[in-house]
């Protein structure tokens, strides 16, 4: 008797884990984004070298070279890298874990200016500036 164990994605996302939970979710989306990006890249490269798939390869190429896609992918790839670095540092030096809140602030402090500059360059070139 009783309900089955069931943790749906939406229910899990609604858990109020605050800052650390947000970084975890963004990290996971980032990992997935990188896989999609690299996957598309490999697929487009493969198809472009075959006459039967050249058009499809060029089409896929145009997706990830699109500046809107780059705004998205750069956000998640950069966040994934910086957040991963934070986790590696905390895993290697557990005593620093008591400063985890500050580590997350520092992470955003590093991330935002770098992403801001990249965003400026991508949008400017995307809009033909």
């Amino acid at each position: 008797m009783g309900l089955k164990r069931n943790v749906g994605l939406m229910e899990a996302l609604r858990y109020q884990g605050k800052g650390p939970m947000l970084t975890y979710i963004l990290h996971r989306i980032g990992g997935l984004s990188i896989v999609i990006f690299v996957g598309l890249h490999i697929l487009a490269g493969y198809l472009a070298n075959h006459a039967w798939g050249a058009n499809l390869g060029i089409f896929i190429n145009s997706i990830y070279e699109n500046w809107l896609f780059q705004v998205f992918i750069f956000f998640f790839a950069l966040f994934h890298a910086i957040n991963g670095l934070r986790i590696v540092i905390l895993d290697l030096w557990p005593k620093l874990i008591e400063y985890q809140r500050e580590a997350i602030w520092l992470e955003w402090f590093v991330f935002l200016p770098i992403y801001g500059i990249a965003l400026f360059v991508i949008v400017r070139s995307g809009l033909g500036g």
Partner: protein
Amino acid sequence: MEVTIKLFRYNPEKDKKPSYKTYKLEALETDRVLDLLEKVKGYQDGTLSFRRSCAHGICGSDAMRINGFNRLACKTLVRDTGAKITVQPLLGMRVIKDLIVDMEPFFEHYRSVKPWLINDDPEPEKERYQSVDQRAVFDDTTKCILCACCTTACPSFWGNEQYVGPAAIVAAHRFIFDSRDKAAAERLKILNEVWGVYRCHTIFNCTLACPREIQITRAIGEVKMALTTGKTE
């Protein structure tokens, strides 16, 4: 003040699906969520089921999701939740009835790390001595009350209940770093298995949820480091 409390309800003998019921009641800002649950059960709906025992943050029976976050109902004040409160059972456990979940998988993981002192050396004439510094190493992890707030706040555990979970690792840490214990290697071997300590992705939900403010992620980090270096002192 008037408080609206929305409760997760499920009776396995009557309901096919769980539902939510809302109750309105008068409360003080200094009332605890547990007091509100008692009022609902006592005066509005006697069928409501939830666990509670000491009601003072020691037994760990009344862990539940309050406004989407794992807490002990006996340590959560209305002042901190506001006038609208939603109470749900712990996530990642099988619901038996209303707010009561099946804790057996949790305790199974707890037992798996052998949370007791193992030392086959002949008993000394008096006690086994330990310095203040040696005791301080694992002081934090002695505070665990096994409420399961940490384990059920962990996305790795949500993903797969085979993961040993933060509470069991905390229990293991308490003995791995105890200078009187001789089974650290045995416990580390258990935690080095597929569903052991490396399923922790340093998310910190456990640390934030712990009502005893144990630095759980740090304890897990120290166990990971002990596995890497082989040092437990």
